């Protein structure tokens, strides 16, 4: 297939969509949250309902995550963007009847109806969505993840077409640089710079890796894109391959995401069939192939050098950098490794331009960030907001505030590598630098909200336990240090610790942070350090007087 064929196909699809007899489309959210609250059954029942009522021209589309997961299962009607919440096999019938047959929205079941004086018939007018800006997640609740034609109707593969025919690899890289996009896998390294480094390393074999290991507890943003819009990632990877000069890519997806793996593999097949992946893409002499590799459930395999070892078939333990993968990565070849959300941002940047993207967000952190809201918040789920949105806006305007009218106590960001932000910093603008200043990190975007009943020492202990379990055991500071810190934190929780224990904790924390081989150990002390910084009194009030015998040995 060449470029003209491709344009013709898109044109035909667009025509077909325009002239289709279907007036209504019903989207059933089949993201992780909605599936676990019964979306599968709703889907079946809905199809029955439609058949029984003779409404066969209505198309039912299973989609990826729509966002407000704990209001699910969610069902969206188009045109009109009317979203219903907490749908089950009983009320789905009523919804179809009033929405389609009676043409009158069923107010009681509209999204957020319990919290709004007048719920919005068009959900996009609700502040929950209005405050958000979806770039990486855009289309996630609107396309059928297993239909490439659906993706084509949402500008699919147009960015690839543009890159291949209107831009040189250097142009692509400078567009990404101009966008000021930073890696969304945690560290926030400038993506354009990384691409340029790989581009500059001359080698006939280079690789692209998309990191979909997503091991942070509670995080599911990468999952939602992999499951909800896999072609977007495939397109990003292919553009990356063209830019840096790689002809092979690996998508490393954790084994706990069987649906993501299935969808991604289906997407690879469909893309190859269409000619936007594989040999001589769109008739050019650029070829690019992608394979899926499945992770076996170790958090540390998300770390890039461990991930590479894992793809090579070795034990997934990190190695010291340098050399960085950009210089010597997979099988010793220059390798570009980017996170799923990073890859999902590529196509929009190529289509709309780096300048457009760089104008969103803050001075040092451009664009948007996906957060997984969890904990004592009313609307847990996935949101995407411009960088620099304040924590207050996220928790109260979007997240609907604290459950049961409780008090906000802290927000934990960055998972086991992050820290806790106390109430006095609710107005912090969420970007890489500001979070760092408060002793936390952006991480991959986990955001756990805690109310006044949370025990901050126990929060630190919980995350330390996670690191003890997930430490690969290669280096001493992390292997033994995290275990020691965990046991000391346990002692504090049980009101058995002394001031000496706190001092030992503080010393160990800094030591483990500075001496560990990889970022797991390097960031494992963060929850401890940040709770010590912002919630010191919770430690101090539990400390016991030092016994004499202890003092002798331990001074």
């Amino acid at each position, binding site marked *: 297939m060449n470029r003209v064929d491709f344009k013709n196909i898109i044109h035909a699809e667009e025509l077909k969509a325009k002239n289709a007899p279907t007036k209504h489309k019903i989207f059933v959210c089949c993201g992780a949250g909605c599936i676990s609250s019964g979306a599968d059954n709703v889907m079946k029942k809905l199809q029955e309902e439609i058949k029984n009522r003779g409404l066969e021209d209505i198309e039912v589309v299973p989609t990826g995550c729509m966002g407000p997961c704990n209001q699910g299962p969610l069902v969206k009607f188009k045109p009109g963007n009317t979203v219903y919440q907490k749908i089950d096999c009983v009320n789905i019938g009523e919804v179809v009847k009033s929405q389609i047959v009676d043409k009158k929205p069923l107010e009681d079941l509209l999204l957020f109806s319990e919290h709004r004086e007048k719920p919005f018939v068009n959900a996009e007018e609700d502040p929950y969505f209005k405050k958000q800006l979806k770039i990486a997640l855009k289309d996630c609740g609107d396309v059928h993840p297993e239909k490439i034609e659906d993706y084509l109707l949402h500008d699919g593969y147009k960015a690839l077409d543009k890159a291949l025919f209107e831009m040189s690899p250097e142009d692509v890289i400078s567009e990404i640089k101009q966008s000021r996009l930073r890696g969304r896998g945690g560290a926030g390294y400038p993506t354009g710079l990384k691409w340029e480094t790989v581009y500059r390393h001359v080698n006939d074999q280079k690789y692209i890796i998309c990191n979909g290991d997503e091991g942070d507890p509670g995080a599911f943003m990468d999952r939602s894109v992999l499951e909800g819009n896999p072609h977007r990632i495939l397109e990003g990877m292919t553009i990356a391959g063209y830019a840096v000069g790689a002809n092979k890519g690996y998508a490393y997806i954790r084994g706990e995401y069987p649906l993501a793996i299935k969808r991604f593999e289906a997407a690879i097949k469909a893309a190859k069939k269409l000619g936007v992946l594989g040999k001589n893409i769109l008739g050019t002499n650029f070829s690019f192939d992608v394979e899926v590799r499945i992770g076996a459930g170790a958090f540390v395999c998300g770390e890039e050098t461990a991930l590479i070892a894992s793809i090579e078939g070795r034990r997934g333990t990190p190695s010291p950098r340098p050399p960085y993968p950009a210089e010597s990565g997979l099988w010793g070849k220059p390798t570009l490794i980017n996170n799923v959300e990073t890859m999902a941002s590529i196509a929009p940047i190529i289509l709309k331009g780096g300048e457009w993207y760089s104008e969103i967000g803050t001075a040092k952190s451009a664009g948007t960030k996906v957060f997984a809201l969890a904990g004592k918040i009313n609307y847990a789920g996935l949101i995407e907001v411009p960088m620099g949105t304040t924590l207050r806006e996220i928790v109260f305007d979007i997240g609907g505030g604290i459950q049961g009218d409780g008090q906000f106590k802290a927000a934990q960001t960055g998972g086991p590598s992050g820290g806790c932000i106390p109430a006095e910093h609710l107005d912090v603008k969420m970007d890489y630098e500001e979070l760092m200043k408060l002793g936390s990190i952006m991480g991959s975007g986990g955001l756990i909200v805690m109310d006044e009943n949370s025990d901050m020492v126990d929060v630190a202990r919980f995350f330390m336990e996670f690191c003890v379990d997930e430490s690969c055991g290669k280096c001493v500071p992390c*292997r033994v240090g995290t275990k020691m810190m965990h046991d000391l934190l346990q002692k504090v929780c049980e009101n058995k610790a002394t001031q000496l224990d706190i001092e030992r904790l503080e010393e160990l924390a800094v030591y483990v942070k*500075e001496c560990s081989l990889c970022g797991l150990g390097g960031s494992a002390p963060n929850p401890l350090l940040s709770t010590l910084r912002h919630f010191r009194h919770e430690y101090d009030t539990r400390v016991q007087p030092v016994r004499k015998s202890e003092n002798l040995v331990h001074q």
Partner: protein
Amino acid sequence: MMALVTIYIDGKKIIAGSEKTILEVARENNIEILTMCHLKGLTDVGACRLCMVELEGSPKLFSACTTKVADNMIVTTNSERIRRYQRITTELFFAERNHICAVCVSNGACELQDLGYKVGLDAIRYPHLFPQCEVDTSHPLYVMDQNRCISCSRCIRACAEVEGAYNWDMMNRGYQIRVISDFNTLWGESTTCTSCGKCVQACPTGALWAKSIVQGQQDKHPEFITDLMERRKMNL
């Protein structure tokens, strides 16, 4: 041709080949950097973190055994912070498993014990984990005692890189990692071990020892490994 660079270690100006690590250059110039997982001749893995040094201009620490020298690098190996961290690492080694020197074959000839003296270890401030560990005596010539293993992986690398037998590997994660023979079977039943004893020589502690000796008598020669690799490089 190897490029030459100028570096400064603890104030001493040194000209060195750019392919070398900080550790190599320091040792060639009689500057002591403590190490445990490093054994000259084997691939460096940067696992024990004893050899951490400061580089001027960076707040981070670097493992000397895996970091290459670069022009105008200013290295500090003996700051108060570095010494404090060496001591903590040593304490963690001792607290992790069951190091009862008095009943150990390596008593008096043990790199871990030596390390304890070097960092001036007088007490261990962290609670000992005292794990339940296995002792594998099934091999006709050697014993593997997990109680004394510090997971440095020198045995694994000596077996793979020098002997080429690949008998040893690591299993589990975190503080529960264990060195295993084949797929975690008895060493005496190994289908890969050639009984060459290189792992025993490479092991810095009393974790691997020869059955023929008694308490305090194990005399190890890890430099055998280094010499073997040097000779191999010369193609003799």
